């Protein structure tokens, strides 16, 4: 088993431009240091119709209300402003930006616990002996020689589908054939319960695929898996 850079086509070149936008990095950096409530704010604002900050401050009194912690409010203001910048990019672009944010956030959280022997990479394919390579690369990989990991990232639970689950489980299975314990996971910037409902109906094999939902994103940066 080995990792390989994904081939670049026109779509990936365009998307790479979005991934490289400093706004994506800024939002991801803020969300990496955010509470779960702030992450819910970000999800709501980036999905929202209205882009006036005051509207969102009223919707989240626990972050911006009279009794809210001052430091929390200051950070939440930054999260809100950056989220509304993405919302302001327009309907066509915002979905790509949101996806790029989840990928960047995942990579940043993983980097907290990944050592020098476990580089965190983006847009990588995994090749197995005698197995035709998957077309779609994995969003984020931790390329440890001991315990490699691959992550597919989704903005919402609706992104969980048979193709994604099959690709992850196939990779795990092929790695096992080579005596490699490949960890496979799907990271979803959505409520855990919504993801579980989606998975409940999924017929694709996913029993050994880890779910990391919005409430548990910090698990990505923790030492033990």
């Amino acid at each position, binding site marked *: 088993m080995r990792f390989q850079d994904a081939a670049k086509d026109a779509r990936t070149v365009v998307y790479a431009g979005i991934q490289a936008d400093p706004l994506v990095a800024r939002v991801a950096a803020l969300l990496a*240091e*955010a*509470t*779960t*409530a*702030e992450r*819910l704010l970000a*999800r*709501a604002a980036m*999905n*929202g*119709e*209205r882009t006036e900050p005051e*509207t969102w401050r*009223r*919707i*989240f*009194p*626990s*972050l911006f*209300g*009279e*009794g*809210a*912690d001052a*430091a*929390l409010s200051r*950070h939440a203001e930054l999260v809100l402003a950056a989220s509304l910048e993405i919302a302001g990019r327009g309907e066509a672009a915002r979905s790509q930006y949101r996806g790029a944010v989840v990928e960047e956030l995942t990579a940043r959280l993983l980097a907290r616990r990944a050592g020098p022997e476990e580089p965190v990479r983006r847009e990588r394919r995994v090749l197995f002996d005698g197995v035709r390579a998957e077309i779609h690369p994995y969003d984020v990989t931790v390329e440890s020689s001991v315990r490699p990991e691959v992550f597919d990232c989704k903005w*919402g*639970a*609706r992104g969980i589908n048979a193709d994604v689950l099959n690709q992850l489980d196939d990779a795990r299975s092929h790695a096992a054939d080579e005596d490699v314990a490949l960890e496979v996971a799907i990271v979803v910037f*959505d*409520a*855990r*319960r*919504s993801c*579980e*409902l*989606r*998975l*409940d*109906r999924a017929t694709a094999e*996913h*029993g*050994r*695929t*880890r*779910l*990391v*939902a919005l*409430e*548990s*994103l*910090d*698990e990505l940066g*923790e030492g*033990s*898996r």
Partner: protein
Amino acid sequence: MLIDAARYAWSVSETAEPNSPDGGDVVARAATAYRALADLAETIEDEWQYVTDLVDVYLPGIQGLAGAGPERLGIEQVEAVDEAIAEIGLISDPHKAIDWLSTFPHVVGLALGGDVDRPAGGEGGAFPADGIPGASVAADAAGPEPDDDSPFRLLLGRDR
């Protein structure tokens, strides 16, 4: 598990204000808005089952918030829910409606200090409002424990 009252959204309005609105009324408005959102989302035929599953879980969760906190709510809490209702009322795209079927219940739960996953007598929301940025939220991040026979035990990483 110890309950730290300061961690939850009730701390925004720790005492009910005189003549503050009834929690049941606010929750009823949220439930009505949620049903309307579901009606819009259902127009995506391929997602009918998912929409139904979301509503089956979250509508009772929203309704359960009526009994999850103080009878009388603070003005900020009522405004929060009504603003959230206004927000989903602007949605005309059924795909967006599906996204909000997942998000709206948690926004309402956070505003009212309840948990739409565990509305009755839970220990607080799945989306706690606690902590300064960067503070550990590991205990909450783990989310509610799944049932012992839950197929999601492995998915949730409990056995790792």
